[in-house]
């Protein structure tokens, strides 16, 4: 077998992709995992993981490293920080091209590209990233000691991180677009009883402004259309996640309205021999445990598919 020919290529090296790689390579299926970023996916963006069964409190970095080592120990090849430049999923032999020149072929594909934090996509957001705007409270919270900050979002991350940030900030204002929160009740109660936290509901952030660092946020009340400007030192954005499926737009794989991959009960996409797993899927719960389960099922079905051919 030539070096660029595999039985299965897994695209994405988060928990779903690494699990798929562990299962398929352990079954003696020649497997390649490729990732356009760091091995571990969103897992490494998590400081502490305390609810992964069988593993006492660990870091995302450590769990990713263990999964990578497991996959490699079974003979799985892994390439990270590559550029995905082309995919051809039709036909019996699928191909994946990286860095414009390196073409790999396989009998089956497991698409496990995961997701990413959603940006607000408003003026000033990119300019002030790291200069007042952050997406990680545990990473950057201590830069905001005794400062006034806003937290944007209304889900569990937003509410929980807002509470965590009161350890540093003197005042935290949560800005949310609806009149209610999507977060679990206990997270909402925790935030509401915290004296440092106040709320601006039914409002959108329209713009971030400042000189070299973030200084102000422009907020529009969605009910009254009134626009106000608020002086702030920092903004933490937690407005959910989106699937990393941009590459599949205009491709043959069926996506739903939210750009998420639709699969059948065997985790096969609308294209034969192309399976999908993890946060790239249309699904409700996005956890490391669910990604690992998806990766397992997708790999087992891919193995069966390959062995049938």
């Amino acid at each position, binding site marked *: 077998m030539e070096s660029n020919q595999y039985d299965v290529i897994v695209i994405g090296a988060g928990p779903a992709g690494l699990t798929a790689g562990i299962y398929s390579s352990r079954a003696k299926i020649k497997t390649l995992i490729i990732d356009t970023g*760091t091995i571990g996916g969103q897992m490494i963006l998590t400081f502490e993981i305390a609810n992964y069964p069988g593993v006492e409190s660990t*870091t995302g970095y450590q769990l990713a490293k263990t999964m990578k080592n497991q996959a490699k120990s079974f003979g799985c090849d892994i390439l990270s*920080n590559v550029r995905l430049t082309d995919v051809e999923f039709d036909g019996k032999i699928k191909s994946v091209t990286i860095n414009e020149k390196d073409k790999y072929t396989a009998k089956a594909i497991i698409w496990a590209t995961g997701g990413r934090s959603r940006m607000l996509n408003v003026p000033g957001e990119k300019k002030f990233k790291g*200069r007042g705007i*952050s997406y990680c409270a545990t990473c950057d919270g201590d830069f905001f000691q005794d400062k006034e900050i806003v937290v944007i979002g209304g889900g569990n991350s937003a509410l929980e991180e807002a509470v965590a940030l009161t350890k540093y900030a003197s005042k935290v204002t949560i800005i949310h677009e609806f009149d209610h929160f999507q977060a679990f009740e206990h997270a909402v109660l925790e935030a509401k009883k915290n004296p440092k936290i106040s709320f601006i509901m039914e409002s959108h952030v329209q713009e971030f402004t400042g000189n070299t660092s973030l200084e102000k946020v422009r907020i529009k009340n969605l009910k009254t259309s009134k626009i106000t400007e608020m002086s702030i030192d920092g903004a933490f954005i937690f407005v959910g996640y989106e699937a990393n499926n941009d590459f599949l737009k205009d491709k043959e794989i069926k996506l739903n309205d939210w750009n998420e991959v639709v699969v059948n009960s065997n985790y096969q996409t609308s294209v034969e021999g192309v399976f999908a797993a993890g946060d790239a899927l249309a699904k409700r719960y996005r956890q490391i445990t669910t990604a690992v389960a998806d990766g397992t099922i997708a790999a087992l079905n891919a193995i069966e598919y390959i062995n049938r051919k």
Partner: protein
Amino acid sequence: MLQTNLKHVESEAQYSEILQNNENVIICCGRMGPMCVPVYDAMEDLEKEYTNVKFYDMEFDIPDAHVIRNLPECRGFMGLPFTVYYKNGKVVTATTSIQNYEQIKEILEREF
């Protein structure tokens, strides 16, 4: 010490020596946090490709890291890691917060 495969800057004296003896240097100053790890990882890969550049990390919380924390080019930075690029001992670019492989590569291409 940071758990990376990069070489570590552990003191102000070592920092000065590195800048004095090397034309092209990149130092990523951070923690083992979610925004920092992807930068170290990208640097580890890029180190193989850019043999004309010296790649280092430095722990943000050691006292001697003031040499990075207090750089004028890092004023206003409020996101880890601080990644600083030096040419002949002078700062040519500094970035704050997470950067991906392509973003770092683009700076390396441009500056070195």
